[in-house]
């Protein structure tokens, strides 16, 4: 498990390197807690910030990439369209590690189309929805993840069913789907570290209460409501590939998942019937939790071995962006051959 941060990580970088600019979000915003976990996860996993690209759309959540990994390139794109920008960046250079930060409006409303197709493609990207069920930056209107019956500050009740982004992601083919709570440091950190070991699309919905517009009595995304209705599916432990730790567990209680890079994920199940490698089981679990009015959190679905999008496209191993001209411009003989065919 995670060793406590000392001076430097395994690639010799200090924690300071992983920090970003000072947050301009509200004090107590769940998004800031998520940024802190991202900093910890990237530091502890020893990710080179120069290889990381941070992407986002528009909204409070989408501002947060400025507040972590200051040494990484960032791209705050247009509303709801971050998936396409991230896709382009990864096509250009598959050595990059992409982390995209979106919100429930950015994903569930204006960006639902691009979200859907990102999930289908299994692009290597960690896609995080900082989910507070409302539009914070425009002062608290409902978003598409607001629960049925949830109340706005001014008393307006949401009467439309919510979009469950995790269920949707599982359905659409995402290969790593998880839900967490910005207040659950341990679970969120373990999930983020596991996300860094996955090759394919990671969809991580983090319920992240909006302290200013959606933290009142009657809201189903308030701190107290989420704390009371958080239903962890398992205890998540993560052992990175570079740590040789043996984990003892009672047979039948814990599911071990081998990650793409050799890391191991240990899911100590709290619900015996649940199997996160089974799509149908994952969907049933989500629906059942929702019926109980609870949030099923933890690792919901994982398929560690499916080909990612770049593999499907059969691109060369080197970044396309830096291929030399002699590999990207066919020789004169090729043009001559084409011309001859047209005569």
């Amino acid at each position, binding site marked *: 498990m995670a060793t406590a941060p000392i001076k430097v990580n395994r690639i010799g970088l200090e924690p300071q390197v992983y920090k970003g600019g000072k947050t301009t979000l509200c004090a107590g915003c769940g998004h800031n807690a998520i940024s802190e976990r991202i900093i910890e996860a990237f530091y502890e996993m020893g990710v080179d910030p*120069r290889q990381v690209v941070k992407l986002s759309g528009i909204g409070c959540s989408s501002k947060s990439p400025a507040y972590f990994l200051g040494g990484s390139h960032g791209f705050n794109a247009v509303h709801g369209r971050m998936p396409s920008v991230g*896709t382009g960046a990864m096509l250009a250079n598959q050595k990059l590690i992409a982390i995209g930060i979106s919100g429930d409006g950015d994903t569930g409303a204006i960006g639902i189309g691009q979200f859907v197709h990102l999930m289908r493609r299994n692009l290597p990207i960690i896609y995080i929805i900082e989910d507070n069920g409302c539009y914070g930056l425009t002062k608290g209107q409902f978003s598409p993840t607001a629960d049925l019956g949830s109340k706005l500050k001014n008393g307006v009740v949401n009467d439309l069913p919510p979009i469950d982004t995790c269920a949707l992601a599982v359905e659409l083919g995402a290969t790593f789907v998880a839900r967490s709570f910005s207040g659950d440091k341990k679970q969120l950190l373990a999930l983020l570290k596991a996300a860094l070991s996955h090759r394919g699309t990671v969809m991580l919905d983090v319920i992240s209460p909006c302290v200013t517009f959606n933290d009142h009595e009657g809201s189903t995304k308030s701190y107290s409501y989420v704390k009371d209705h958080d239903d962890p599916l398992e205890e998540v432990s993560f052992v990175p590939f570079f740590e040789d730790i043996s984990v003892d567990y009672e047979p039948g209680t814990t599911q071990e998942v081998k990650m793409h890079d050799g890391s191991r994920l240990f899911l100590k199940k709290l619900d015996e019937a649940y199997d996160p490698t089974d799509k149908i089981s994952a969907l049933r679990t989500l629906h059942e939790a929702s019926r109980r009015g609870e949030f099923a959190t933890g690792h919901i679905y994982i398929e560690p071995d499916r080909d990612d999008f770049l593999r499907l496209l059969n691109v060369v191993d080197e970044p396309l962006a830096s291929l030399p001209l002699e590999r990207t411009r066919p020789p004169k003989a090729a043009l001559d051959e084409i011309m001859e065919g047209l005569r």
Partner: protein
Amino acid sequence: MSPTDVAPQETVSPRSTSRVVNDFSIQVATVNGSGSQTANLVLLRSILLMGVPVSGKNMFPSNIAGLPTWYTIRASKRGYIGRKKEVDFLVAMNAETAKEDVMTLDAGAAVVYDEPLKLNALRSDLTFYPVPFDKLVTPVCPDAKLRRLVRNMIYDGVLAKLLGIDMSMMEQALAKQLGKKAKAVTLNQGALKAGWDYAEATFTKQDPFHIEKMNETAGKILIEGNSAAAIGCMMAGVTVVAWYPITPSSSLCESLIGYMRKYRIDKESGKATFAIVQAEDEIASLGMVIGAGWAGARAMTATAGPGISLMSEFAGLGYYAETPAVIFDVQRVGPSTGLPTRTAQGDLLSTAFLSHGDTKHILLIPSSVEECYELSMDAFDLAERFQTPIFVMMDLDLGMNNWMSDGFKYPTRPIDRGKVLTADVMKKIGEWGRYKDVDGDGIPYRTVPGDGMPAFFTRGSGHNAKAQYSERPDDYVHNVDRLARKFDTARANVPKPIVDTNREAKIGIIGYGTSHWAITESRDQLREETNVKTSYLRVRAYPFTEEMTKFIDAHERIYIVEQNRDAQLAALLRLELTPERITKLRSVLHYSGLPIDARSVSDDILSQEGFEVARRSTPTPGSMGSMTGGE
């Protein structure tokens, strides 16, 4: 619309009966989806193989099967490859349109038609050649299912005989078209011969039209502009392509996929040196291109007007965040869905300023297939040099029709990857800021993710020279003024116009894109028929270059020829010309959806110059104007 486009046909004069050699147009009227394309392309290429300059234009419906379609082949000994207004030789295969097709011909035209249509009763001033296609196809094609496709090859045989095209050229063209499909070649050869034999046994040549061997096409190629642009993109070293199918741009990406799979697979690893993604829509297409350009790839997309509209927001991001991107707009008729399978130059104005706020873009405007190839390469260089989206403004006529051209030259110039920060540059400039104008040309130095150079935060929101979020008025003004300076720098770097000055001319013509072909032919008509001398400037890029004002100053009147209703290039020009220069501008506008033709240009200019212009027949088969149905 030019005045002659709506002129009635009461004063048609009978055509002279002297031989017309290598200077006429053939129109084949068929039903969409009947497989006539092979027969039409074989006919086109056989004329090319006869050494006669030729061009082919497909006028088709937005439909997969069942609606009328027309293919026009123009042979021109003088090398004119624009649309010819009059149809001289009609092949009437479509019962639905045959009557109208025949009624709109000029006197003296010839008609090959499907015998049961009994068209010969319609007019007494045309030459008719009835052919019993169904009867002829049965013996040469025992398989009834294939007859519908093979049937069309019969008219090629008939035309070969009637026009004097060597059967060996026909067969050579057929072999080229069908390649290694031996069974198809044999079947079609049989049909070709059946047509020839029938015409030889049945008809006495009565029309004046002949194809005779010339030596004007040695080394020439036949290609569509979309394929030409695709070859240019491949040669430019494009690595990331994202697209969404839309007429008339789809074949650009589809032919690119074909070429890339053939020529851009790494020999050793068997892996692709490119990624091509069919995106979920045009918004995502440009998003991917911008993401890829930002991460250092040469990236492109291709679309048409509706896609351009959807790309508006990302185009603004590309402009303001300064990311390279290449966007092909193969223009079709708008507004809205418009006429998806017809041509126009109607996106110029909206694309030049695509997106909200003070946004303006560099446009490149090819006129020929050769320029589609060359300007494609220029587009990638300019996109990286100016770190901005570059729009290549083609149109359906250029993109989807077959054009004769010289073969394309292999690029010799090294590619320009623009100002990318390196350790050496860093040493030279001292402090780096992503949006800092170090060189005074408005173009900053950029870094790309993963290159080990300093990172920055890219955003569409306000930023200062160091790419930090800023709402400060001075930061904003400083930044957008620099962007304007960058745009000015582009004036000296975009492709210059092609200028042909006649010192005696009082009239200057300005044109661009496919209007070029009508303009060059029109200038000959004006000079030879009415002794009106003209100069000509062909615009190849926006922003305009310094040659523009010089050209305007050197002439009394300027005719701007465009294929849109609102005189869009003229509008762009007006934004930067002095009032005295603006008063010289006049417009020749053509926007029926059909490619502009020389006669319309000549008539319009003469009319505006005060000449009496003879009224001529309607420009095209009447049924094309009234075609309805299908989406």
